[in-house]
């Protein structure tokens, strides 16, 4: 089964599928020595609140385009790196994975940096929102104003990735 490198949907995330996706490319090239993975999980607490569960929603076609764009940005900055990034939507319970990322590259430094860069950029520009259901209420979480062309935000993601 072919796994898309950019993915979004309600199904539980399978990190092994993402690893396989970047590894397929890796084997084809035969030159990669590292695969780095990241899983974002639903925490049971946030800002002093006891969280019961989250609901994620996305503007799906634009989210996929944002993931594609992030993968292209990685290709510009770390030309040898391959990225797979999937985000889940719908109700997610505590401990569920909301986002999964796998990066492959010839050397570990680029794979680690690219992986960190991807999660920073997902948080900056992917049109995805989480609604937090906590003890006593619920609230939409609002983070960054998404602007893919904001060079400062992109530079900040790169700075964090290479720190």
């Amino acid at each position, binding site marked *: 089964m072919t796994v898309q490198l950019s993915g979004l949907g309600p199904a539980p995330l399978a990190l092994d599928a993402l690893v396989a996706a970047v590894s397929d490319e890796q084997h084809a090239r035969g030159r990669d020595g590292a695969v780095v993975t990241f899983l974002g999980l639903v925490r049971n607490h946030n800002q002093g609140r006891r969280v019961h569960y989250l609901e994620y929603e996305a*503007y799906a076609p634009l989210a996929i*385009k944002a993931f594609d764009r992030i993968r292209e940005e990685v290709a510009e900055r770390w030309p040898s790196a391959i990225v797979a990034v999937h985000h889940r939507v719908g109700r997610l319970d505590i401990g569920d994975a*909301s986002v999964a990322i796998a990066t492959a590259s010839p050397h570990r430094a680029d794979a680690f940096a690219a992986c960190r860069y991807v*999660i920073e950029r997902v948080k*900056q520009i*992917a049109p995805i*929102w989480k609604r937090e259901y906590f003890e006593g209420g619920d609230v*939409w979480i609002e983070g960054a*104003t*998404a602007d893919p062309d904001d060079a400062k935000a992109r530079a900040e993601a790169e700075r964090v990735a290479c720190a």
Partner: protein
Amino acid sequence: MRVTVRLFARLRDIAGSAELARDVPSGATVKTVWRDLAGEFPGLAEYERSISTALNEDYARMDAEVQEGDEVAFLPPVSGG
């Protein structure tokens, strides 16, 4: 001309709808659509400085012109991950 408006997260809650059809004059921009909507749903106005906008499933600026049948989306600050 008629455009489709898509609203997400808290903007959707404020307007009480995820998708609306609205008529705008020829030459209207994304901003025209937003201002009309904010007039209709005053709770939206506070988001004017923090929203992102998209036109036909691509990020766009407020001054982008809209055409008949376009899909205009208003996105509150994002919180994926």
